[in-house]
Structures are given as structure tokens and as C-alpha cells.
């Protein structure tokens, strides 16, 4: 045994060095690679939860209709039935969370309606369009049309 060790000493030293390097590699790898890396694929699985945890600004129309069912009922029968509330009113998740301290502001029909309904040859033919200056001049749309039930 003793002679064997003496004669194969260079191999033992090499094997020890190899083992040490392997341990070093494993330690560095453990420190550098995030724990969830590779769980689902070649990426950090924890980032899925991080991305999914971002807060939302738009509450979604179900949240609006939970309280404002009078408007929802009126809108359901009218031309704007398919519109989400936040298409015109803007992002209102904060208002849905805490209605008392985050008031929603009423959009101005003078600028709101023409965003969609100003005539343009690129808009589809079925879509109701007006040349606003010829339609009623400076009279705001809201004085004749109720945006929730636009038919006069």
C-alpha cells in the first residue's frame, strides 16, 4: 500500500486538485445561479411571479359595473354596449380600490368623442363618423348626446 501511494502520488495529487476544482466550481455555481433558474426552462422561474405581481392600473369593467349598475344597465341597451368603461374614463383601479379618496373625473365630451368619431378615410366604413366642424361646430357633443346612450 505504501509503495503504491508513493508510486501513484502524482495521480493522487492530480485527483485531489480535480476534486477541489470541482467543489470550487459547484460553490461558485451555487452562489451565482439563482435557485429557481431552470425550474421550467432556461430562465429564472421566480421572475414569472415577480412579473405577475405588478399592480394593475385598469380595474376592468366588471369592477366598475359592480357599483355603477345603473349606468351599466343604460349602456347595455345602447350603441356603446361593447365599450369598456375605462375606454373613455381612463384607468381607474385606484378608484375601484378606494372610491372615497380617489375620485374619477368626468371626461370632456368636446375632446373625447372626436377621438373616435372624427371622419377619416382610414376608418372602417361601418363606423359612425362626422366631420366635427360641420356637424355642430363648437357645441360640445355632450349637450345633445349622452355618451352612455348616444342616440338622440
Amino acid at each position: 500500500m505504501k509503495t503504491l501511494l508513493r508510486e501513484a502520488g502524482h495521480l493522487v495529487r492530480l485527483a485531489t486538485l480535480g476534486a477541489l476544482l470541482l467543489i470550487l466550481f459547484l460553490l461558485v455555481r451555487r452562489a451565482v445561479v439563482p435557485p429557481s433558474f431552470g425550474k421550467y426552462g432556461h430562465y429564472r422561474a421566480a421572475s414569472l411571479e415577480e412579473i405577475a405581481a405588478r399592480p394593475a392600473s385598469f380595474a376592468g369593467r366588471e369592477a366598475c359595473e359592480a357599483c355603477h349598475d345603473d349606468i351599466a344597465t343604460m349602456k347595455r341597451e345602447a350603441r356603446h354596449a361593447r365599450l369598456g368603461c375605462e375606454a373613455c374614463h381612463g384607468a381607474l383601479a385606484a378608484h375601484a380600490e378606494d372610491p372615497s379618496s380617489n375620485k374619477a373625473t368626468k371626461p370632456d365630451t368636446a375632446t373625447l368623442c372626436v377621438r373616435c368619431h372624427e371622419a377619416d378615410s382610414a376608418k372602417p366604413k361601418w363606423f359612425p363618423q362626422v366631420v366635427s366642424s360641420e356637424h355642430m361646430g363648437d357645441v360640445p357633443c355632450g349637450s345633445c348626446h349622452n355618451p352612455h346612450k348616444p342616440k338622440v
Partner: protein
Amino acid sequence: MKPPPSNDLNRRDLLAGFGKFIILSGAARVALEAATTGVPPPDADKYKAAQHWWAMTIDVGRCIGCGNCVRACTKENGVPAGYFRTWVERYHVNDADLEHPVVESPNGGFDGFKPKQESAGKSFFVPKLCNHCVDSPCVQSCPVGATFESPDGVVLVDEKYCLGCRYCIQACPYGCRYLHPTKKTADKCSLCYHRITKGLTTACCEACPTGARQLANLKNPADPVHEFLRSNTVQVLKPHMATRPKVFYKDLDGAVR
């Protein structure tokens, strides 16, 4: 599973218990228990990635170029000014030169479009966003695994892992990526992953007044997307790139690039 009382364990209970144990996986056993006892499992309404395969349909014939989607996306995702995760293009195809349409997208359509009346040719709006490709060049080009396809088919960017090397920005044939000016990491449409995993639709779909954009779960047999794909001819952008995009356009003009 309710353990049978130890002193009157009969052969029937024992065999049924063993049968469930051997045949059913953990999840299936919970589902069977829920179905037979009527008590839903504790995580019944938890989001399950395996039941979703996200896509989007865009009906070009419904887009009115209002820019609501661009504004909603910017607001929802904090997109820096001058950068876009989604944008709208206005096309004008001249009858005499079908190969070279005039394309404009002032500020990505964020402020809407200046009204125009063309007497001839064809004009239309095309909303664009990340196509969440099945074979994404961006995912393949990322050297560190910071951009990836989630198990439910959404191409996402891991901000904490991205080096900002911009390979993916060059790789995307649709120009859907940009380097975030302050974070210095790649950024793009996440298909509102934080919303769709909570049962909401994307911000752009929520804000679209005509329903031109529809979020679709291809794994849900009850999703209207299946009827939409059956009854319409749909195109994807740049099919020759073999990226297998999951944003399906209806009534897309051949001039769109």
C-alpha cells in the same frame, strides 16, 4: 383524502383508497375528491399556467385608430415617453403602387391621427404589438436566459437578469423591443401578464372601444377565439420568418409588413 377510522377499516374502503393512491396523481386525486364531495379544492381559483396558451386576435376592419390601446398600455405598464409596447400604424395603399404603401405612425398613435380624407386607394389602421412567437428569435438570441417563453405562451423579460446587450432587440423581426432608457434592460409587451394571470384582460383590450383586439386563451375550448379562427381567414405578420406568431390578424391587407 379522509382517512377511514382505524378500527372499522373494511375491505371496500381499503381497496378504494389504494386504488386512488395508485392510479391517480396528486392533482387528479384532489379533483376527484372535489367532484365527489362537492367541496372545491383550496386552490381551485388559483391561476394555472398549464390551462392557458395566450394569443391575441386583431380585427383590422374594426380598428379606428383612436390610439386608446397605446395610451392604455403606456399607463398600465409605465412605458417611457417615445417608446411603445404597442403602436398603431396608418397605411395608405396607392392603387398604382401596391408594393409601396405609405405608412405613418406619429408618436406611435399615442395622440391619435390627424384626420385625413384620401380620395383614392385604400387606407386603414394596423395595431401592432409583440407577436408572442412560438419560435421567438428574441428568446433564442438571449445569451443569459433573461427573455423566455412562459409555460402559458407569453414571451417575457426578466428585468433582474437582463444584461442590456440588445441582441434580442436586433433579433426581433417586428421591432417590438426597445432598451428601457432608465433601467437599461430590454423591454417589450408582456401581454399584461400581471393582468391576465388575475382573470383580467390586457389593458389595450380593456381600452379598445371597438373590440378590434381580443385576448384569447387557445387552450380554453369555450373561448370565442376558436369560432373566430374557424370562420375567418387570418394572417400573421411576416410568416416567412417562421417565428410562428400568436397575434392573428383578420382582414389584413397584403401590403402590411
